[in-house]
């Protein structure tokens, strides 16, 4: 009898899900509500982890892109596509959570759904920049070209992020000062920390799974198609 080996990334996935449950429980029931925003502020315990980890994912994609161009290794390309997909998904979640939070606080009682704030605008543009890389990937058939082009586009997009940030900040500085940084109480730090690691582990899980799928797809492409039978063979069979 052989025990099937569990792939290493599942440990990350399990740990991530467990931590997410613990962190969210503390965030929802143990930590005190925020003085001004009240209960709705608890969205922070998933909002900030999404923001941080999506940035980590894009940085990992950038590093994988360099690795992919440098070595031409297939694993780098798998890691790249996994990291970009995880980053874009977290970024979309981040935007949705931000809008929910904003509707309950900044824009309460108004018809507003969006502010051209530095962080909002930068994360929206970041999402579009990296979604563009995925769009490019979707249209390229050749595997080698898909890998090198996505790596090139990832590097070009990643370098743009600080430029976008500065340009939006300067653009906004003419109108209003940047929102002040939140001061966070120690009871709020614990769930925040736990959830950050939870989301990070889950992201690693997704990236590794996605990389495996990509490698399998490549292997599948390399398998020669079955030979068509000659008329004699099919008649004889």
């Amino acid at each position, binding site marked *: 009898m052989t025990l099937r080996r569990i792939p290493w990334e599942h440990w990350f996935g399990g740990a991530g899900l467990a931590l997410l449950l613990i962190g969210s429980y503390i965030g929802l029931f143990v930590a005190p509500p925020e003085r001004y925003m009240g209960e709705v502020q608890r969205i922070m315990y998933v909002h900030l982890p999404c923001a941080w980890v999506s940035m980590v994912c894009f940085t990992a994609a950038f590093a994988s892109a360099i690795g992919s161009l440098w070595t031409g290794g297939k694993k780098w390309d798998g890691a790249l596509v996994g990291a970009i997909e995880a980053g874009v998904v977290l970024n979309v979640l981040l935007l949705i959570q931000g809008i929910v939070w904003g509707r309950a606080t900044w824009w309460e009682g108004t018809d507003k759904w969006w502010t051209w704030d530095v962080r909002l605008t930068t994360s929206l543009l970041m999402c579009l920049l990296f979604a*563009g*890389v995925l*769009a*490019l990937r979707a*249209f390229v058939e050749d595997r*080698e070209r898909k890998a090198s082009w996505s790596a090139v586009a990832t590097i070009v997009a990643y370098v*743009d992020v600080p*430029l976008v940030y500065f340009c939006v900040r300067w653009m906004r500085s003419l109108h209003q000062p940047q929102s002040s940084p939140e001061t966070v109480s120690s009871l709020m730090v614990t769930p925040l920390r736990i959830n950050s690691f939870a989301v990070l582990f889950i992201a690693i899980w997704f990236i590794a799974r996605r990389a495996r799928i990509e490698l399998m797809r490549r292997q599948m492409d390399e398998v020669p198609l079955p030979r068509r039978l000659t008329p004699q063979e099919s008649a004889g069979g």
Partner: protein
Amino acid sequence: MTFLRQALAILRKDLLIEWRGRSRLFSVLLFGVVTLLLFSFAVGPDGGALEENASGFLVLALLLSSTLALSESFRLEQEQRAIEGLLLVPVDPVALYYGKVTGNTLFLFLLGPLLMPIALGLYGVPAGPETLLRLLGVWGLAAAGLSAPGSLYAAMTSRLQSRDVLLPILLFPLLVPVLVAAVKAIDLLLSGDPMGQLRDWLLLLVAFDLIYWALCGILFPQAVEER
């Protein structure tokens, strides 16, 4: 020295093709004029709104026509696989890139002196010849910024069926810093700069140009070479 010679040869070839045909410049220019007109129809005949947003509309019209011009610039190389022939000669792909990007910058820059007077006239913005020269300086920096990633992406997407969709998808989010900086700088030139902010926006444009001219030159061989 061969590097410079190759880049100049590519530039000369592109300018010659452009000059003999002249159809690309004409069609792109026409597109720009139509866009400028559409903006004024969208806003309505109210002169105030048009004048207020003139810098934004002008840069948007230039950006849209530039995207069109960039995607055209590599279509020619794809026809009958001319680019593969060029690389087999062999032309250093980096020299090929810098030849192409210089040609594209010149071409996009040329749209400025042609479209700007039309835009300023249509939108009723007063500007003397000296202001116009300064505006052209800003546009020169912006054109260099558009061409650097634009030529790289055009080289990649020109091989694909869906190039017309992909090029804007990839370029527009990337070019937001150029767009914002150019609009702000032009706006400050047209309506006065009491706070002295012009320098910062120009610096942002220069930084974008330097970063992407260097980076895309390094990455270009990966985009065109067969592995």
